Protein backbone atom coordinates (compact mmCIF):
# COMPACT_ATOMS: atom_id res chain seq x y z
CA UNK A 1 0.00 0.00 0.00
CA UNK A 2 1.22 3.52 -0.77
CA UNK A 3 0.59 6.61 1.27
CA UNK A 4 0.93 10.20 0.21
CA UNK A 5 1.31 12.79 2.91
CA UNK A 6 0.69 16.43 2.06
CA UNK A 7 2.20 18.86 4.54
CA UNK A 8 1.02 22.45 4.27
CA UNK A 9 1.37 25.57 6.38
CA UNK A 10 -1.63 26.33 8.56
CA UNK A 11 -3.94 29.16 7.63
CA UNK A 12 -2.68 32.36 9.18
CA UNK A 13 0.96 31.28 9.05
CA UNK A 14 2.77 33.54 6.60
CA UNK A 15 4.28 31.60 3.69
CA UNK A 16 7.03 33.82 2.25
CA UNK A 17 7.99 31.20 -0.37
CA UNK A 18 4.41 31.00 -1.60
CA UNK A 19 4.32 34.80 -1.76
CA UNK A 20 7.52 34.88 -3.82
CA UNK A 21 6.08 32.31 -6.26
CA UNK A 22 2.90 34.37 -6.50
CA UNK A 23 4.91 37.48 -7.39
CA UNK A 24 7.01 35.56 -9.93
CA UNK A 25 3.88 34.22 -11.65
CA UNK A 26 2.50 37.73 -11.83
CA UNK A 27 5.81 38.95 -13.30
CA UNK A 28 5.49 36.23 -15.96
CA UNK A 29 2.10 37.68 -16.89
CA UNK A 30 0.02 34.82 -15.49
CA UNK A 31 -3.18 36.54 -14.48
CA UNK A 32 -5.77 35.61 -11.90
CA UNK A 33 -3.61 33.83 -9.31
CA UNK A 34 -5.07 35.10 -6.04
CA UNK A 35 -2.82 33.20 -3.68
CA UNK A 36 -0.01 30.60 -3.70
CA UNK A 37 0.78 28.35 -0.73
CA UNK A 38 3.77 26.01 -0.91
CA UNK A 39 3.94 22.66 0.87
CA UNK A 40 5.59 19.25 0.79
CA UNK A 41 4.58 15.88 -0.61
CA UNK A 42 6.01 12.80 1.09
CA UNK A 43 5.42 9.36 -0.49
CA UNK A 44 5.63 6.20 1.59
CA UNK A 45 5.59 2.55 0.50
CA UNK A 46 4.00 0.55 3.29
CA UNK A 47 3.93 -3.17 3.96
CA UNK A 48 0.61 -2.74 5.78
CA UNK A 49 -2.43 -3.76 3.69
CA UNK A 50 -5.22 -2.74 6.08
CA UNK A 51 -6.18 0.87 5.19
CA UNK A 52 -7.31 1.82 8.68
CA UNK A 53 -4.15 0.53 10.35
CA UNK A 54 -2.03 2.16 7.65
CA UNK A 55 -3.78 5.50 8.10
CA UNK A 56 -3.37 5.41 11.87
CA UNK A 57 0.28 4.53 11.54
CA UNK A 58 0.98 7.32 9.04
CA UNK A 59 -0.93 9.81 11.21
CA UNK A 60 1.37 8.87 14.11
CA UNK A 61 4.39 9.43 11.81
CA UNK A 62 3.03 12.86 10.91
CA UNK A 63 2.51 13.85 14.54
CA UNK A 64 5.96 12.67 15.55
CA UNK A 65 8.15 13.67 12.62
CA UNK A 66 6.71 14.40 9.18
CA UNK A 67 4.86 17.58 10.16
CA UNK A 68 5.51 20.26 12.77
CA UNK A 69 1.96 20.72 14.02
CA UNK A 70 2.79 24.12 15.53
CA UNK A 71 2.84 25.54 12.01
CA UNK A 72 1.76 22.75 9.64
CA UNK A 73 -1.30 20.66 8.77
CA UNK A 74 -1.13 17.28 7.09
CA UNK A 75 -3.48 15.19 4.97
CA UNK A 76 -3.02 11.52 4.14
CA UNK A 77 -4.03 9.77 0.91
CA UNK A 78 -3.84 6.00 0.61
CA UNK A 79 -3.61 4.02 -2.63
CA UNK A 80 -3.13 0.33 -3.43
Amino acid at each position, binding site marked *: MKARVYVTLKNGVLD*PQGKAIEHALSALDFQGVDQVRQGKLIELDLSESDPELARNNVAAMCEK*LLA*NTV*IENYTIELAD
Partner: protein
Amino acid sequence: MKAAVIVFPGSNCDRDVQVTLRDVSGVEPVMVWHKESSFEDVDLIVLPGGFSYGDYLRSGAMASKSQVMREVVKRAGNGVPVLGICNGFQVLTESGLLPGALMRNANLKFICKDVHLKVESSQSLFTSAYETGQVVRIPVAHHDGNYFAGEEELDRLEGNGQIAFRYVEQDGSVEAAANPNGSARNIAGVYNETKTVLGLMPHPERLADPQLGGIDGKGMFTSLLESLS
Protein backbone atom coordinates in the same frame (compact mmCIF):
# COMPACT_ATOMS: atom_id res chain seq x y z
CA MET B 1 31.44 24.49 35.15
CA LYS B 2 31.57 21.32 33.11
CA ALA B 3 29.67 21.56 29.82
CA ALA B 4 28.72 19.08 27.12
CA VAL B 5 28.51 20.20 23.49
CA ILE B 6 26.30 17.97 21.38
CA VAL B 7 27.69 17.36 17.88
CA PHE B 8 25.35 16.39 15.02
CA PRO B 9 26.39 15.62 11.46
CA GLY B 10 26.33 19.11 9.95
CA SER B 11 27.00 21.03 13.18
CA ASN B 12 29.55 23.73 12.38
CA CYS B 13 29.70 25.98 15.45
CA ASP B 14 30.50 23.18 17.88
CA ARG B 15 34.18 24.04 18.04
CA ASP B 16 33.54 27.79 18.34
CA VAL B 17 31.42 27.23 21.41
CA GLN B 18 33.92 24.65 22.72
CA VAL B 19 36.68 27.30 22.60
CA THR B 20 34.47 29.91 24.29
CA LEU B 21 33.42 27.52 27.07
CA ARG B 22 37.03 26.48 27.63
CA ASP B 23 38.28 30.09 27.69
CA VAL B 24 35.59 31.32 30.05
CA SER B 25 35.40 28.39 32.48
CA GLY B 26 38.91 26.94 32.26
CA VAL B 27 37.32 23.50 32.00
CA GLU B 28 37.46 21.45 28.81
CA PRO B 29 33.92 20.71 27.57
CA VAL B 30 33.02 17.18 26.61
CA MET B 31 32.01 16.80 22.95
CA VAL B 32 29.14 14.32 22.56
CA TRP B 33 28.34 12.68 19.20
CA HIS B 34 24.65 12.41 18.26
CA LYS B 35 24.69 8.61 18.36
CA GLU B 36 25.56 8.49 22.06
CA SER B 37 22.73 7.38 24.32
CA SER B 38 24.44 8.67 27.46
CA PHE B 39 27.29 10.90 28.56
CA GLU B 40 28.94 11.98 31.79
CA ASP B 41 27.16 14.25 34.25
CA VAL B 42 27.57 17.90 33.28
CA ASP B 43 26.39 21.27 34.58
CA LEU B 44 25.33 22.57 31.16
CA ILE B 45 24.36 21.12 27.78
CA VAL B 46 24.95 23.18 24.63
CA LEU B 47 23.32 22.51 21.26
CA PRO B 48 25.51 24.37 18.77
CA GLY B 49 24.78 26.12 15.49
CA GLY B 50 25.09 24.57 12.06
CA PHE B 51 22.98 22.59 9.64
CA SER B 52 22.32 19.32 11.41
CA TYR B 53 21.34 16.56 8.98
CA GLY B 54 21.53 19.13 6.17
CA ASP B 55 18.32 20.78 7.43
CA TYR B 56 16.44 17.84 5.86
CA LEU B 57 12.65 17.87 6.34
CA ARG B 58 12.77 20.98 8.57
CA SER B 59 15.69 22.70 10.31
CA GLY B 60 16.41 20.79 13.51
CA ALA B 61 13.73 18.13 12.87
CA MET B 62 16.00 15.14 12.32
CA ALA B 63 18.41 16.12 15.11
CA SER B 64 15.52 16.47 17.56
CA LYS B 65 14.77 12.74 17.08
CA SER B 66 18.38 11.58 17.42
CA GLN B 67 19.54 9.14 20.07
CA VAL B 68 21.38 11.75 22.13
CA MET B 69 18.37 14.08 22.25
CA ARG B 70 16.37 11.57 24.25
CA GLU B 71 19.00 11.91 26.95
CA VAL B 72 19.09 15.73 26.58
CA VAL B 73 15.28 15.93 26.94
CA LYS B 74 15.45 13.69 30.00
CA ARG B 75 18.17 15.79 31.66
CA ALA B 76 16.40 19.04 30.79
CA GLY B 77 13.37 17.57 32.57
CA ASN B 78 15.57 17.04 35.62
CA GLY B 79 16.59 20.70 35.53
CA VAL B 80 19.98 20.52 33.79
CA PRO B 81 20.41 23.85 31.95
CA VAL B 82 20.36 23.63 28.15
CA LEU B 83 21.52 26.37 25.76
CA GLY B 84 20.57 26.11 22.06
CA ILE B 85 22.24 28.51 19.66
CA CYS B 86 20.85 29.01 16.13
CA ASN B 87 20.38 25.45 14.82
CA GLY B 88 20.38 24.43 18.48
CA PHE B 89 17.34 26.70 19.02
CA GLN B 90 15.63 24.99 16.06
CA VAL B 91 16.40 21.58 17.60
CA LEU B 92 14.91 22.74 20.93
CA THR B 93 11.62 23.88 19.38
CA GLU B 94 11.40 20.70 17.29
CA SER B 95 12.01 18.56 20.37
CA GLY B 96 9.29 20.37 22.32
CA LEU B 97 11.67 21.72 24.98
CA LEU B 98 10.82 25.24 23.84
CA PRO B 99 7.52 26.61 22.48
CA GLY B 100 6.98 27.92 18.94
CA ALA B 101 8.73 27.20 15.66
CA LEU B 102 11.41 28.76 13.47
CA MET B 103 10.36 29.38 9.89
CA ARG B 104 12.07 30.59 6.72
CA ASN B 105 13.22 34.23 7.03
CA ALA B 106 10.49 36.58 5.82
CA ASN B 107 12.78 38.01 3.10
CA LEU B 108 13.77 34.45 2.04
CA LYS B 109 17.46 35.33 2.34
CA PHE B 110 20.24 33.85 4.41
CA ILE B 111 21.10 36.66 6.82
CA CYS B 112 24.66 37.01 8.11
CA LYS B 113 25.31 40.23 10.01
CA ASP B 114 25.58 41.79 13.46
CA VAL B 115 22.29 42.74 15.09
CA HIS B 116 21.38 44.52 18.30
CA LEU B 117 19.54 42.62 20.99
CA LYS B 118 17.82 43.78 24.13
CA VAL B 119 18.35 41.62 27.20
CA GLU B 120 14.78 41.39 28.48
CA SER B 121 15.83 40.45 32.01
CA SER B 122 19.04 39.83 33.90
CA GLN B 123 17.15 37.37 36.14
CA SER B 124 18.31 34.11 34.57
CA LEU B 125 21.20 31.68 34.60
CA PHE B 126 22.12 32.87 31.12
CA THR B 127 21.90 36.66 31.52
CA SER B 128 22.91 37.52 35.10
CA ALA B 129 26.09 39.25 33.89
CA TYR B 130 24.03 41.67 31.79
CA GLU B 131 21.74 44.49 32.94
CA THR B 132 18.01 44.25 32.35
CA GLY B 133 17.32 46.22 29.18
CA GLN B 134 20.98 46.26 28.13
CA VAL B 135 21.55 46.38 24.37
CA VAL B 136 24.25 44.05 23.04
CA ARG B 137 25.65 43.48 19.57
CA ILE B 138 25.67 39.83 18.48
CA PRO B 139 26.02 38.23 15.02
CA VAL B 140 23.23 36.26 13.34
CA ALA B 141 23.77 33.76 10.50
CA HIS B 142 20.66 31.83 9.50
CA HIS B 143 18.05 31.09 6.86
CA ASP B 144 15.29 29.86 9.20
CA GLY B 145 15.14 32.26 12.12
CA ASN B 146 11.63 33.63 11.77
CA TYR B 147 10.14 32.88 15.19
CA PHE B 148 6.48 31.91 15.11
CA ALA B 149 3.97 31.13 17.85
CA GLY B 150 0.23 31.74 18.09
CA GLU B 151 -0.93 35.08 19.54
CA GLU B 152 -2.17 33.47 22.76
CA GLU B 153 1.11 31.61 23.15
CA LEU B 154 3.06 34.84 22.61
CA ASP B 155 0.96 36.61 25.26
CA ARG B 156 1.60 33.74 27.63
CA LEU B 157 5.38 33.83 26.96
CA GLU B 158 5.46 37.58 27.60
CA GLY B 159 3.38 37.22 30.75
CA ASN B 160 5.70 34.54 32.12
CA GLY B 161 8.86 36.47 31.30
CA GLN B 162 9.92 33.78 28.85
CA ILE B 163 11.16 36.20 26.18
CA ALA B 164 14.95 36.29 26.59
CA PHE B 165 16.05 38.64 23.79
CA ARG B 166 14.44 40.88 21.19
CA TYR B 167 15.89 42.40 18.03
CA VAL B 168 16.14 46.15 18.62
CA GLU B 169 17.68 49.32 17.25
CA GLN B 170 20.97 50.41 18.78
CA ASP B 171 19.08 52.66 21.21
CA GLY B 172 17.00 49.72 22.44
CA SER B 173 13.76 50.62 20.65
CA VAL B 174 11.74 47.66 19.34
CA GLU B 175 11.16 48.61 15.70
CA ALA B 176 10.11 46.57 12.67
CA ALA B 177 13.25 47.82 10.91
CA ALA B 178 15.40 46.16 13.58
CA ASN B 179 13.79 42.77 12.96
CA PRO B 180 16.05 40.92 10.49
CA ASN B 181 13.88 37.87 9.80
CA GLY B 182 10.22 38.61 10.47
CA SER B 183 10.13 37.06 13.96
CA ALA B 184 6.90 37.55 15.90
CA ARG B 185 7.23 40.53 18.27
CA ASN B 186 10.95 40.83 17.35
CA ILE B 187 11.73 37.73 19.40
CA ALA B 188 15.33 36.51 19.12
CA GLY B 189 15.38 34.05 22.02
CA VAL B 190 13.00 32.33 24.45
CA TYR B 191 13.16 30.39 27.70
CA ASN B 192 11.17 27.40 28.87
CA GLU B 193 8.83 27.94 31.83
CA THR B 194 11.51 27.34 34.44
CA LYS B 195 14.10 29.44 32.55
CA THR B 196 16.57 26.55 32.58
CA VAL B 197 16.39 26.08 28.80
CA LEU B 198 17.29 28.97 26.48
CA GLY B 199 17.20 29.03 22.69
CA LEU B 200 18.35 31.99 20.61
CA MET B 201 19.14 32.56 16.94
CA PRO B 202 22.12 34.94 17.40
CA HIS B 203 25.59 33.55 18.10
CA PRO B 204 27.06 34.87 21.39
CA GLU B 205 30.08 32.55 20.99
CA ARG B 206 31.11 34.46 17.86
CA LEU B 207 31.64 37.69 19.79
CA ALA B 208 33.27 36.51 22.98
CA ASP B 209 36.92 37.35 22.31
CA PRO B 210 38.40 40.83 21.63
CA GLN B 211 40.33 39.36 18.70
CA LEU B 212 36.99 38.67 17.01
CA GLY B 213 35.90 42.28 17.27
CA GLY B 214 33.98 42.38 20.52
CA ILE B 215 32.96 40.60 23.68
CA ASP B 216 29.23 41.36 23.93
CA GLY B 217 28.45 37.63 23.70
CA LYS B 218 30.84 36.66 26.47
CA GLY B 219 28.38 37.76 29.16
CA MET B 220 26.19 34.76 28.48
CA PHE B 221 29.04 32.39 29.29
CA THR B 222 30.24 34.35 32.33
CA SER B 223 26.62 34.36 33.56
CA LEU B 224 26.50 30.59 33.27
CA LEU B 225 29.88 30.26 34.96
CA GLU B 226 28.73 32.39 37.93
CA SER B 227 25.42 30.56 38.18
CA LEU B 228 26.67 27.00 37.78
CA SER B 229 30.07 26.90 39.50
